[in-house]
Structure formats: structure tokens, C-alpha cells
């Protein structure tokens, strides 16, 4: 029975990835690139979730391992692909493994000593490591300095990208279902207690860190071979921050949450490309109004005074938000710098950041919190709701 389920799920997963590839093939290059990038981001978010969410270690330098994977596999392809005489896809699989290995080694070297540190100290060490890697690459002629590196042979494969994402999800999911993974969770909840229960805490932390880094490295290899060119600016601190945000917004520890958040957050700036010219004062008014309304709602919800009904809050915030936006739109119109209009393209980053803040204020435990997506959870969620309203 076990092997039957296992085997069929593997087959299903592979067929699913194959179906994605077939579906995407007909689409525009834009669509294909989006799918590849989404796959890469899902892998990154889920792998960071293993470190941050599941094991509770605070890493904010994930882009460094992603970068190591991309550069190491890029160097290997540029030097050895021609003499290897291998089919491209097999080579890409090999490169994913190579990228993963290099990133895993780096993860081990960084992780082993620094996982003694806790919380914020570990955070800054990982951040510092990310900066160090970038600075080193910027000064290496062989790696293209700050310009970047061209991968001689582009191997864009939607199939392998999605398979990597699925593998990553499956790996993490299976990991926390077995005894090794339970020790990860134990370390997150209480290190001392888990250590007393015979869990080798250091080993668990380092294992999580190395697996997470390796997956990020594989993602880097896929990314590099799909785009054919990357530069240090693709792996800066803000990319690490975005990955971290995906994990937290999805709900730390929730694999499905990280997956969904990765896709959504990655897609928001792309979706905003459709934004056309809008008045500047209206835009900034909308942002201020939203944040103000969210903050007010938040305080009403948390307050001890009598709470209005949910419908009243929702209606009130929508009406209030719109009214405030309109008021601000005209109030701000006279200010210097705000009288004109602006191309929506320039607002992509601003809107993404605003969405982050607002979502965080509204649902600090993340969209999925610690839960995984499952039918039971969904049923519970929707089954409970009417009771609250009534």
C-alpha cells in the first residue's frame, strides 16, 4: 500500500510537471519566463521555510546560496559542457546537483560555526555572508565582475524547474512527517527540551541549513541556465528579504503557505506592469489611507472595548478607506511634486512594499499561519465562519 501510494504520487508529480511544460509551451515567452521564475521562487521560499519556519533558525542571507548555485553551475557549463557531449537536459540535472553541492558546502561552512548563535545574531551573520559573496564575485575577473556572467548554453526547461519545485515541496513535506523532521520541529519549539529528549540539536540545525542551502543552490542553477545571464544585482540583500517575506507571509512553517506566498509575491510586481498612468496624489493618498485604515482596524480588533461586528468593520474600513483616499487625493494635490501624473511602472516596487506592510499588519502570523493547506483545514475554516457572524 505504502509503495503504491508513493510510486503513484511520484508518477503524478512528474506527469504534472510535464503537463505544465506542455501547457506553457504554447504560451508567449513572457508566460514561460514567469513560470520558470515562479518555480525558482517557490523552491527558494520552501527551502528557506525549512530553515526559518520549520527549524526556527533565522537566516536572512538565502540569496547567497542561490548565487553560489548559479555561479558554480554557470562556470561548469561554460568550461565543460562542450567536452561533455551530454544531452542538454541531463546536463541541467547534473548542474542542479552540482549547484546544490556547492551551495551545500557553503551552507555547511557557514552553518556549522554560526548556528551556535541565536536569533538576530545568526541573522546578521547570514546577511554578512551574503554581502561577502557579492563583494568577492564583483572582484573576480573570471566571474564577470559586477557585470555578470553569461552562461554559454541556455537550457530553459520548464519541466525541470517545476520538477525541482515539486521535489523541494515533497522533500520538505516528507521530512517533517518522519522522525528526522519531527526533531526539526522539536528544535524550533524548544531547544533545551528537545536536547533533553536526545535530539542532537546542532546536527539538526546544520542538516536543515545544509538541505535548505542545497535546494537554493539547485534553484540558482536552474535560474542561471534559464536566463542565460545573471549578475550580482540579482542576488542582493533585497532578494533575500523578498524570499524571507514569502516565508513569513505564507505563515512560518507552512510549506503550502510559502508556496502560495512565493507565487503571489513574485507575481505582484509583474502584474503591476499593466498599471498605466495615474495621478500621483491619488496613489499616495490610497497608500496612506490603506495603512491608516488597517492600523485603526487592527487596534479596534485588539482592543478590549466592545468589538463591532465583522461586517461593520469590513464595511467601515472600505467606506472609510475610499473616503480617506478621495480626501487625500485632493488634499495632497497642491503639494509640490504631487501635482502631476505618474507611470504605473514606476510604482511596482512601492506597491509591493506597501502590500507587505499591510498584509503583515492584517495577518502577522502569515496567511496560512502554521497550518498546511488541506481539505480538513479548509472545511474547518469555512465551517466555523457562519458561527462567528451569527
Amino acid at each position: 500500500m505504502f509503495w503504491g501510494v508513493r510510486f503513484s504520487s511520484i508518477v503524478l508529480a512528474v506527469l504534472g510537471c510535464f503537463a505544465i511544460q506542455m501547457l506553457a509551451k504554447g504560451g508567449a515567452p513572457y508566460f514561460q519566463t514567469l513560470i520558470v521564475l515562479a518555480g525558482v521562487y517557490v523552491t527558494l521560499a520552501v527551502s528557506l521555510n525549512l530553515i526559518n519556519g520549520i527549524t526556527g533558525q533565522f537566516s536572512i542571507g538565502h540569496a547567497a546560496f542561490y548565487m553560489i548555485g548559479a555561479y558554480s553551475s554557470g562556470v561548469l557549463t561554460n568550461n565543460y559542457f562542450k567536452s561533455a557531449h551530454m544531452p542538454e537536459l541531463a546536463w541541467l540535472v547534473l548542474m542542479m546537483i552540482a549547484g546544490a553541492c556547492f551551495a551545500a558546502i557553503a551552507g555547511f561552512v557557514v552553518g556549522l560555526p554560526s548556528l551556535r548563535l541565536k536569533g538576530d545574531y545568526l541573522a546578521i551573520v547570514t546577511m554578512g555572508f551574503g554581502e561577502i559573496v557579492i563583494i568577492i564575485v564583483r572582484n573576480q575577473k573570471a566571474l564577470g565582475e559586477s557585470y555578470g556572467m553569461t552562461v554559454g548554453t541556455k537550457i530553459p526547461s520548464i519541466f525541470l524547474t517545476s520538477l525541482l519545485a515539486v521535489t523541494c515541496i515533497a522533500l520538505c513535506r516528507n521530512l517533517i512527517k518522519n522522525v528526522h523532521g519531527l526533531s526539526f520541529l522539536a528544535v524550533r519549539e524548544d531547544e533545551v527540551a528537545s536536547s533533553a529528549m536526545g535530539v542532537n540539536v546542532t546536527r539538526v540545525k546544520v542538516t536543515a541549513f545544509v538541505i535548505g542551502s542545497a535546494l537554493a543552490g539547485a534553484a540558482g542553477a536552474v535560474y542561471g541556465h534559464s536566463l542565460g545571464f545573471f549578475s550580482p544585482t540579482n542576488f542582493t540583500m533585497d532578494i533575500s528579504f523578498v524570499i524571507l517575506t514569502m516565508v513569513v507571509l505564507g505563515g512560518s512553517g507552512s510549506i503550502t503557505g510559502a508556496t502560495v506566498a512565493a507565487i503571489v509575491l513574485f507575481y505582484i510586481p509583474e502584474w503591476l506592469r499593466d498599471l498605466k498612468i495615474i495621478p500621483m496624489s491619488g496613489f499616495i493618498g490610497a497608500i496612506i489611507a490603506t495603512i491608516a485604515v488597517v492600523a485603526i482596524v487592527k487596534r479596534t480588533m485588539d482592543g478590549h472595548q466592545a468589538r463591532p461586528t465583522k461586517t461593520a468593520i469590513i464595511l467601515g474600513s472600505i467606506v472609510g478607506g475610499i473616503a480617506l483616499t478621495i480626501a487625500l487625493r485632493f488634499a495632497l494635490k497642491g503639494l509640490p511634486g504631487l501635482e502631476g501624473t505618474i507611470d504605473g511602472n514606476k510604482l511596482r516596487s512601492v506597491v509591493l512594499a506597501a502590500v507587505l506592510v499591510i498584509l503583515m499588519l492584517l495577518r502577522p502570523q502569515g496567511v496560512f499561519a502554521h497550518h498546511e493547506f488541506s481539505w480538513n483545514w479548509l472545511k474547518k475554516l469555512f465551517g466555523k465562519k457562519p458561527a462567528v457572524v451569527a
Partner: protein
Amino acid sequence: MDFSLHLVAAFDLTTLPQQLVNGLLNGAIYALIALGYTMVYGVLKLINFAHGEVFMLGAYGALFVSWYLGYRPDGASPPASYLTLILMLLGSMLVCTVAAFFIERFAYRPMRSQPRIASLITAIGLSLLLQYSAQIFLLNGTPQTIQAGKLSPFVGNVTLNLRGPDQAKLDEAEKLKPSMTAAAAAFKARLPLEKGEFDLSPEGKKLQEEMRVAERKYNEAVNAGTAHAVKIAIPKGQVVLFVTTIFLMAMLTYLVMFTKQGRAMRAVSHDFNAASLMGINIDNVIVFTFLLGSALAGAGAMMYCTFIPGTKIDAFTGLTPGVKAFTAAVLGGIGNIPGAVLGGLVMGVAEYVVVWAGYDSYRDAIAFVILIIVLLFHPGGLLGSSKVEKV
């Protein structure tokens, strides 16, 4: 990379004293910003990633005040005065305080009861929001500069001579001077007859070449004379910055250790709930600390942008100083006020020693390398309490 070459360069001791002083002055900037970081962390236990952006807003505040007072890049401007500097300082601190008030009120306060990672993401989100908004709404993101040359009365250097030049060689060089001036005069006399400085007739070219040969000879002789001179030039403005940092450190230490407000801050830092049970108004203490820390960022921003000549002010101005100050604060032991200053100074000096040794491309990496090494051996930072997590 030719390592031996770098070794030779590394033993050029004549520039070392100057570089160490440069390093201390450089570190004072990090220390000044780190003070604010460490204060906020001490009480809120939150890495305030938006601190760098508050710093950036402060820089803009100082810039606008200086513009309002008439110190623009073009046109005439009033004479330099201390009052201008003080007004800019106040303006910058005011902007930062107001910004910090809104940030605390609308972003951090609702998050206080939430897990720390959620507050951290809010801080990151705010930091990005402020950066990108500034890029659109503050002068369209064009880099600007405070006209320090026009408004700062602290002009020039304080020079210390540690070892004089070789006077005999200088005298010898002096003998070459007449021939150089003669050649220069000859060329200068010729220049009006030519079409332009870069479009010379053969005769002009010959005269120019003679002038240059004479100049080169003279310069070589002078350089030979001054090769062993060791002197330290300290820009006056940066001395002000350094002194301010040390002064503020002392004041803050006094505030935290010896006043009632400071006791409340320490109590809140130690235990939120217990402090509140003891009758401390937590909100007030946190707002006070947060505004104080941000005002310090404002002071740092104004001094950084004024006393480092030509510093550009744009949306990303606060990013690097913020990250480095954060590193400095952690290096010194986060939450510890003298530690922040020590961390900043250590980082500043380390950066300049790296430059002196000839590895200037790795200047910005060394801070993190030192940080990692220090944390590995002393996980609480240089002056922090060393609570090793038992593993």
C-alpha cells in the same frame, strides 16, 4: 594576484598613521548611527531595518533646510555660519522624529504583541516602502548634495607633522624650480599665438614638452624629498563629528544609567510585563526611546552629509550606513551603548587598514568578516553579555 607586491605595499608605513586616523573618523559615523540602532533594539528587541531610511529622511531634511537658507549649488549664498549647521541639525532631527512617530504608531505598535519575525518583516517592508517612495516623491530620485563648502565654517585640516621631509633633497629640488618656471613662462607666452591648448603648432608642442619635462623633474625631486615625511591631516568637520559621537555616547549612557527615564527604559528592556505591572507606562517609554533613537539618526545624517564633502543624498543614502551601523551595533554587543561606539570605531579602522594593505576592493566586506569572527568567539559581541546558546 601578485601577493608579494601587496606585501611590499603593506609595509609602506608612512601612510599608516594617517589611515588609522581616517579609520577612526570613518568609524565615528558608523558609531553615531549605531547609537540609535542599539537604543531601539535595547528596548523594543526589534532590528529596526527602517532606521537607515529614517536616516535618509533626515539627510533630506538637512538638505531642504540648507536650501531654504539659501545654500544652493547655483548662485550666491550667505556666508558660512554655525547657526546654519545648528538649524540643519534641528531640521534633520525634527524630520526623523516625526517620521519615527508615525512609523511607531502605525507600523510597530500594532505588531508589538506579535512574533518578532512579523515585526521584522514589517520593518523590512517599511524600509523598502520608504526607499521606493523617496525615489519617486523626493526630487524624482535625482542625487543631491548639501553645499558643505559654502555653509560649513569647519574648513580645512588640522595637520600634525610626525616626521619632516628630507630637507636636503627638498633644497636640491628647489634648485630645479627656476628652470621649470622659465619653461612654463615660455609656454605660457606662446599659448596666445596658438589655436588652443590642445591644438598646438610644432613649436608650441616643443615648448610644452620642455615645460613638462622640467615639471616632471621637479616633481620627482620634491617627491623624493617628501617620501619619508609622515603627517596626519584631519578634516576639521570630521573632528566635530567624532567629538559629537563621543559626547552623545556619554550623554546616552548617563540617561540610561542614572535617570528615572533611563531606569524605566532598562526595566522595559528587561521585562515588558513586569515593567508594566510596576506602573511604568510602556507606550511612553517605547515612544521616547524610538523617537530618541531616530533623532540620533537625524543628527548622524546631517553630520554625515555635511562633513563628508560631496556625499550624495538619494533614496538609497541610508541603506549602506544603516547596514554598517547595524553591523557595528551587533559587533559591539547590541543594546549596549558604549559597545555601539566601540563596534563602529573597530569597523572603521578595520576598513582603512584593509585599504592601506592594498585590498581596497574588499573594504566593504571586512566589516562582516570581523563581525563573523568576533561572534564566533564571543557571541554577545565585544561588550555584550555573552550568553552562549547552549547546543
